[in-house]
């Protein structure tokens, strides 16, 4: 009985210690590629992310198949030919916010996340600049960055080369709720 109490006390303490986590299940990540021939844009509304405000570490995870394109054939090609989502189902980022800030305090913060991104099975260091608006209980992160396709070994065949830009602009907006 005494042990049980200890265990429960520890579990409760454990939950309290987790109070510094902010989680998001339905973050949005979109990308846009512009060439003279064709504009390509896609949106993923099921991006998961966690920020630990104790140490300002961040993780982002999304399914490649959750990107929605207006043209479904393009979506199929994106999954089947370019990102090979059967082999590499998810894209992730993990890293740390460089600035020494306490995101639990309401306010607007310019942040720089330094870490690694894994896309198409290739992991590379990346630095992402963004903005966090905190209300104390909720955080909103928005950022934009560029991805070079060659960096992640995403092959575009010569015949469709003109249709797809070599550098893709990625935008993200994620709403976190305190756990």
């Amino acid at each position, binding site marked *: 009985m005494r*042990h049980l109490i*200890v*265990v429960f006390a*520890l*579990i409760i*303490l*454990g939950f309290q*210690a*987790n109070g510094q*986590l902010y989680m998001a*299940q339905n973050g949005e990540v*979109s990308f846009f590629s512009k060439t003279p021939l064709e*504009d390509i*844009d*896609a*949106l993923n509304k099921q991006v*998961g*992310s*966690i920020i*630990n405000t*104790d*140490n300002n*570490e*961040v*993780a*982002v*995870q999304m*399914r490649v*198949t959750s990107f929605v394109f*207006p*043209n*479904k*054939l393009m979506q*199929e*090609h994106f*999954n*089947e*030919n370019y990102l*090979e*989502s*059967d*082999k590499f*189902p*998810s894209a*992730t980022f*993990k*890293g*740390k916010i460089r600035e020494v800030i306490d995101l639990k305090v309401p306010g607007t913060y310019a942040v720089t996340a330094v*870490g690694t991104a894994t896309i198409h099975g290739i992991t590379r260091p990346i630095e992402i600049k963004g903005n966090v608006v905190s209300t104390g209980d909720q955080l909103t992160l928005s950022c934009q960055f560029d991805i070079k396709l060659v960096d992640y070994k995403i092959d575009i*065949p010569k*015949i*469709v080369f003109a*249709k797809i830009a070599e550098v893709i602009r990625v935008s993200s907006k994620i709403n976190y709720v305190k756990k």
Partner: protein
Amino acid sequence: MKVKILFLFGMLYASQILGQDDLLNMLNQEDAKKITYTQATFKGTRFINGQTVETVAKKHLNFWISHRFGALNSGFIDNFLGLDEAKIRLGMEYGLSDVWLVGMGRSTIEKTYDFYSKYKVLRQSNEMPITLTMYGSLATNTMPTGYILPSGNIMRYENNLQRQTYMGQILIARKFTDKLSLQIMPTILHNNKVESVYFDNNLYALGMGGRYKLTNRLSLSAEYYKNIVDTKTFLKTSGAAYPYQDSFSIGFDIETGGHVFQLHFTNSKGMIEKHFIGQTTGTWANTDIFYGFNLARTFSFEPDQKNKQ
């Protein structure tokens, strides 16, 4: 017990300093709870002649141009190995939803119009082993009455109802690996009028098909339809051999941007079920083989996201 308490303390300590890897693991665990649907079991909505489980996405239109040249054994001087003549089918299919399409087409052979619909009932996922699609079609023959069939029989129609053929199929497919997908399709075909009294109005067949991806944009596909016909009884009662054969086709799918090209060899000249399942006269053994191609172009009527916002 002490060890357990220590372990719990350890966990407690760990939870306070959850690092980026722990956070990512948490996200991955969360993600594993979601259903994963299998994508692109086949490249196109049809193998070669028959249909696959695939449907067209919502508000997307597929335009099909299908050609079958003459038989390879029809002579070089007479018919340039069949390339002098061609049968064609023009078709269109439109996605009412992501799982439901309607389509129509018109074939040169017997001047036939066809109307069809496909509905995807089950989708393969990490919880469902197969994709199942229901497929039904109606074919309307608009030939002048009293024409001669390839089997030699003369076909006469007294009214329009006699010109209709109905077809129902259950398409069951599984994507086994990212390269290999297989499908079976039990089929029933009903001709309102048959060419002679010895034929049954209902024809049952079992189809089998598959594709193997050679590269990301090139795949090999084949399909075979086994007709369930009692040919011995047919021979006994009618005094002639059953004139129709099982259909076998093999070819390549080549995908380029918005197009799918299908190049193939088949012993069937027809491109709809009534013709290729019910009225195939050629055999591979006699090199009654037709070279052909299908060309599919997809159009999207979905507005761009940036216009929506």
